[in-house]
C-alpha cells in the first residue's frame, strides 16, 4: 500500500472544508501543529486499490505572506521540504465563482515547484452565474491537472481521486521572474541550503523572521546575505503580487469563454438589504441570539439531566457492587463524577456549535461581523469578537476556541481575557439556588418576577464587567500590529448539513479531550482533599455523631448525612476552608462557604453539591430541601440567619466575576501559549470578585 501526503490549500470560503469532508468522511482527526495552537485536521482517503492519501487540511490563506497565526503555519510548511507535513502533492481549491483571488496562492506553489492539482470548486454556482471556462486550455496554460468539483454534492470527487493517484508532474510555468538585482542573493541562498527552486530561496530571504524551522545560525546567514547583496525585505512584495495578478488576469482572459453576469448575486444583495438594515439588521441579529439561547437552555436540559442521573446511578451501582476501600472510592466518587462533570456540558456545546456552524455556512456570520465591528472596536475588540463573547454565555471553553479567526493579536487577547466574565451555564445552578434563597418570589406590577429580574441582572452584570474590562485593556495593552478588517463577504447559500455535523463532532471531541483532561485531574485532587483529612478526626466521625444523637442533640434519622458533614468539616478541604475564614469573613462568608469556594474552584456548579453535603442535606436533587436547610442556618455571632440578603448578594457577585473554572484556564494557556495570561486572568478575576463581593456585603449589611 502506497501512502501519499496530500495538502489541501486555498483561500477562506473556497469550500475547502467541504472537500476535505468529502474526501475523508468521518475518518479524520484534529490535533495541533507542534508548538503552536493551530488546529491540524488530517484524514485518510483511499484513492484506489493500492494508494492511500493522508490529507491535511491547511488553514485558508490568500498568499504565502502570513498575517495571522494560522497563515504562518502554511508558509512554514510550503517553504520547508524537511517539514514532516511537507506534502507530496497539493490540492489547490479555487472558488470557481471568484477565480482571480483564488489563484494567487497557486502561482506561488507553481514557483515553489510543488506538484499541484487545481480544483475548481462550486462549479454548480459558477454555472448558475452564467460563467463558462475552457478547462482543457486552463490545464494546458498552467501545465497542471484541473478538476471540476462540486464538493457539496460530491460531483467530481472520483476524478479528483484518480488524478491524485496518478503522477502529477511539476508545472513548467515560471510566473514570477525574480528581479535581476536580487538574483545573486537568491542564488547564494539556494546553493547554500541546496533548495529546489529560486522562489524557495526568495521566500527564505523575505520571511526569515517568520520561518521557525531555521536555526539561529541559518537565520544570521540569511540576514548577512541579504545585507551583502542589498536585499530589502518587503521591497519586492507589492511588485510580486502585481506581477502574479497580471499573469492571472492574462490567463483568465484566455480561458474564460463567458463571464459571469452579476444577476446571480442579486438575490444575495436583496437579503443583505434586510439583514444589514439599520433597524431590521440588529433586530434580526438579536432575535437569532435569543433563539440560540432559548435552544441551548431548552434543548440541552433533557440530555443534561439524563447524563447527570446516568452518572449518579452508575456511581451508586458501582458503590454497591465494589468492595469498600480507598481505590474503589476514588473510582465511584472521584473519577466517575469527574467524567460526568465533563460530559454534562456536551449537549450545550454541541448545540452552540451547531448554530455557529449554520451561521457560518450560510454566510450570515460575515454580516454579524459587519454589523458589530464599529461597536466592538470602541471596546478594543473587533467584529469577529462577537461570536466568542456570545458563546461565552454557554461555555467559555468553546468560546475561547472560537477566537482563532481574529487576526490581530491584541483584539484576540482582549476577547480571550474578558470572555470568562460572560455568565456561562455552569453559573446558572449557583445563581438559581442563591436567587431563590434571598429574592422574594413576588411580582413587580404583578407581572415581572423579581427573581427573573435578578437573574437577568446577573447576566447583565457579567456582560458589563466584560466590556468595561475590555475597554481598560484597550488602553493598557500595547500592540505594534495595526488592527484591520479586510474580509470577503460570501454570497448567501444554504448550509451543507454534513459539514455542520462534522463541525459539531470535531469541536465536541476537542472539548472533551482538551478540557476534559484538566477537569478530571482537578476533580480527583479536590475529591481527595474533601474526603481525606487527619486520620484521627476522620475516624472519630461516627462515634462523635453517635454521641450527639445519644445526647439528643441531633436526630437519629440524619445520622448518615451528619457523618458526611462531619467528615467534610475535618477533611483537608475543611481545614483550608477554616484557614480561609479570616479572609472571607469581611465578605460575609463562614468556613462552610469557604469549603464550597474551594471545592467549586475547578467548576462552579460543584458549589451546590458541596453546600448540600456540608449542611448535611443529603439529597442534592431536591432544591427545596437545600433552600429550607440554608434558610434555617443560624449565624452564631448574630443569632440571625446565616444567609442574609447581604451574604447572598455578595456570593452572587463573587460567582459572577470569579474565575472558578480550571478548564478555562487550561484552554487560555493553550491558546496564548503560556501561563502568563491565564495567571493574570485568574488574579484579575479573583481580585474583581473579592473586592466587589466585599463592597456589596459591606453596603448591604
Amino acid at each position: 500500500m502506497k501512502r501519499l501526503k496530500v495538502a489541501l490549500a486555498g483561500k477562506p470560503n473556497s469550500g475547502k472544508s467541504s472537500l476535505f469532508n468529502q474526501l475523508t468522511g468521518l475518518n479524520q482527526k484534529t490535533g495541533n501543529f507542534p508548538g503552536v495552537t493551530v488546529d491540524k485536521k488530517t484524514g485518510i482517503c483511499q484513492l484506489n486499490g493500492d494508494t492511500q492519501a493522508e490529507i491535511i487540511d491547511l488553514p485558508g490563506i490568500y498568499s504565502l505572506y502570513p498575517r495571522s497565526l494560522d497563515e504562518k503555519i502554511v508558509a512554514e510548511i510550503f517553504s520547508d521540504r524537511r517539514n514532516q507535513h511537507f506534502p507530496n502533492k497539493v490540492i489547490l481549491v479555487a472558488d470557481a465563482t471568484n477565480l482571480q483571488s483564488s489563484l494567487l496562492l497557486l502561482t506561488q506553489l507553481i514557483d515553489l515547484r510543488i506538484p499541484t492539482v487545481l480544483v475548481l470548486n462550486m462549479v454548480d454556482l459558477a454555472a448558475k452565474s452564467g460563467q463558462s471556462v475552457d478547462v482543457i486550455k486552463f490545464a494546458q496554460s498552467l501545465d497542471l491537472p484541473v478538476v471540476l468539483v462540486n464538493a457539496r454534492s460530491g460531483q467530481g470527487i472520483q476524478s479528483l481521486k484518480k488524478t491524485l493517484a496518478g503522477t502529477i508532474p511539476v508545472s513548467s510555468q515560471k510566473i514570477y521572474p525574480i528581479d535581476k538585482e536580487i538574483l545573486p542573493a537568491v542564488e547564494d541562498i539556494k546553493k547554500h541550503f541546496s533548495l529546489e527552486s529560486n522562489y524557495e530561496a526568495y521566500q527564505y530571504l523575505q520571511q526569515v523572521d517568520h520561518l521557525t524551522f531555521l536555526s539561529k545560525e541559518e537565520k544570521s546567514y540569511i540576514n548577512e546575505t541579504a545585507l551583502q547583496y542589498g536585499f530589502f525585505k518587503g521591497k519586492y512584495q507589492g511588485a510580486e503580487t502585481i506581477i502574479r495578478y497580471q499573469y492571472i488576469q492574462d490567463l483568465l482572459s484566455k480561458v474564460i469563454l463567458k463571464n459571469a453576469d452579476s444577476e446571480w448575486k442579486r438575490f444575495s444583495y436583496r437579503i443583505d438589504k434586510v439583514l444589514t438594515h439599520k433597524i431590521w439588521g440588529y433586530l434580526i441579529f438579536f432575535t437569532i441570539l435569543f433563539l440560540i439561547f432559548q435552544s441551548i437552555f431548552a434543548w440541552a436540559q433533557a440530555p443534561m439531566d439524563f447524563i447527570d442521573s446516568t452518572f449518579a446511578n452508575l456511581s451508586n451501582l458501582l458503590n454497591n457492587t465494589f468492595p469498600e476501600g480507598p481505590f474503589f472510592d476514588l473510582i465511584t466518587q472521584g473519577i466517575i463524577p469527574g467524567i460526568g462533570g465533563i460530559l454534562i456540558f456536551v449537549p450545550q456545546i454541541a448545540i452552540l456549535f451547531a448554530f455557529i456552524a449554520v451561521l457560518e455556512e450560510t454566510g450570515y456570520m460575515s454580516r454579524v461581523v459587519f454589523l458589530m465591528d464599529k461597536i466592538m472596536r470602541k471596546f478594543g475588540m473587533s467584529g469577529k469578537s462577537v461570536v466568542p463573547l456570545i458563546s461565552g454565555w454557554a461555555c467559555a471553553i468553546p468560546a475561547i476556541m472560537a477566537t482563532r479567526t481574529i487576526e490581530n493579536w491584541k483584539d484576540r487577547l482582549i476577547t480571550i481575557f474578558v470572555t470568562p466574565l460572560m455568565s456561562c451555564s455552569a453559573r446558572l445552578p449557583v445563581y438559581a439556588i442563591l436567587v431563590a434563597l434571598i429574592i422574594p418570589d413576588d411580582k413587580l406590577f404583578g407581572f415581572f418576577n423579581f427573581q427573573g429580574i435578578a437573574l437577568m441582572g446577573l447576566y447583565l452584570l457579567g456582560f458589563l464587567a466584560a466590556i468595561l474590562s475590555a475597554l481598560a485593556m484597550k488602553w493598557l495593552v500595547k500592540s505594534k500590529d495595526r488592527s484591520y478588517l479586510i474580509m470577503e463577504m460570501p454570497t448567501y447559500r444554504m448550509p451543507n448539513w454534513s459539514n455542520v455535523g462534522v463541525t459539531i463532532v470535531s469541536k465536541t471531541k476537542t472539548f472533551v479531550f482538551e478540557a476534559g483532561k484538566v477537569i478530571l485531574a482537578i476533580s480527583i485532587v479536590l475529591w481527595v482533599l474533601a474526603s481525606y483529612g487527619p486520620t484521627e478526626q476522620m475516624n472519630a466521625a461516627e462515634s462523635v455523631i453517635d454521641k450527639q444523637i445519644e445526647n439528643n442533640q441531633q436526630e437519629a434519622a440524619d445520622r448518615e448525612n451528619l457523618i458526611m458533614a462531619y467528615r467534610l468539616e475535618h477533611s483537608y478541604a475543611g481545614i483550608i476552608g477554616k484557614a480561609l475564614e479570616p479572609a472571607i469573613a469581611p465578605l460575609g462568608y463562614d468556613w462552610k462557604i469557604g469549603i464550597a469556594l474551594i471545592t467549586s474552584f475547578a467548576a462552579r456548579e460543584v458549589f451546590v453539591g458541596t453546600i448540600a453535603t456540608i449542611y448535611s442535606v443529603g439529597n442534592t436533587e431536591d432544591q427545596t430541601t437545600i433552600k429550607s436547610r440554608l434558610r434555617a442556618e443560624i449565624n452564631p455571632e448574630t443569632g440571625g440567619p446565616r444567609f442574609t440578603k447581604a451574604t447572598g448578594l455578595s456570593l452572587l457577585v463573587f460567582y459572577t466575576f470569579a474565575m472558578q473554572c480550571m478548564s478555562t484556564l487550561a484552554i487560555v494557556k493553550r491558546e496564548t501559549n503560556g501561563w502568563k495570561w491565564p495567571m493574570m486572568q485568574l488574579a484579575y478575576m479573583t481580585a474583581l470578585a473579592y473586592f466587589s463581593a466585599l463592597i456589596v456585603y459591606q453596603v448591604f449589611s
Partner: protein
Amino acid sequence: MADLAKSVAQMIPGETAVIAGFTNEELSNKLLEMGLLPGSVVTYNFKAPLGDPICVTVSGYDLTLRLDEAAMISILN
C-alpha cells in the same frame, strides 16, 4: 484632471471608480492580495448601519473594509 486626494472612503453607495494606488505601505500588500489592484474597478455597495465598515465589490466579489482601510485606497474618477 484626476483628483488624487479622493479615496474609496469618500465614495457613495452605487458609485464605481478605478483604483489608483495606496497611501499606506503597511497594508498595501494585504489589499493587493485581496484583489484591490491599481487599475481595477471598485464599486461601493453599501455601508454598515453605523457607517463603518463598508462593503465593496472588486473583480467580481464582495469585500468588507473599515473606513480606515478604505481611506488608504486612492481612486481615479
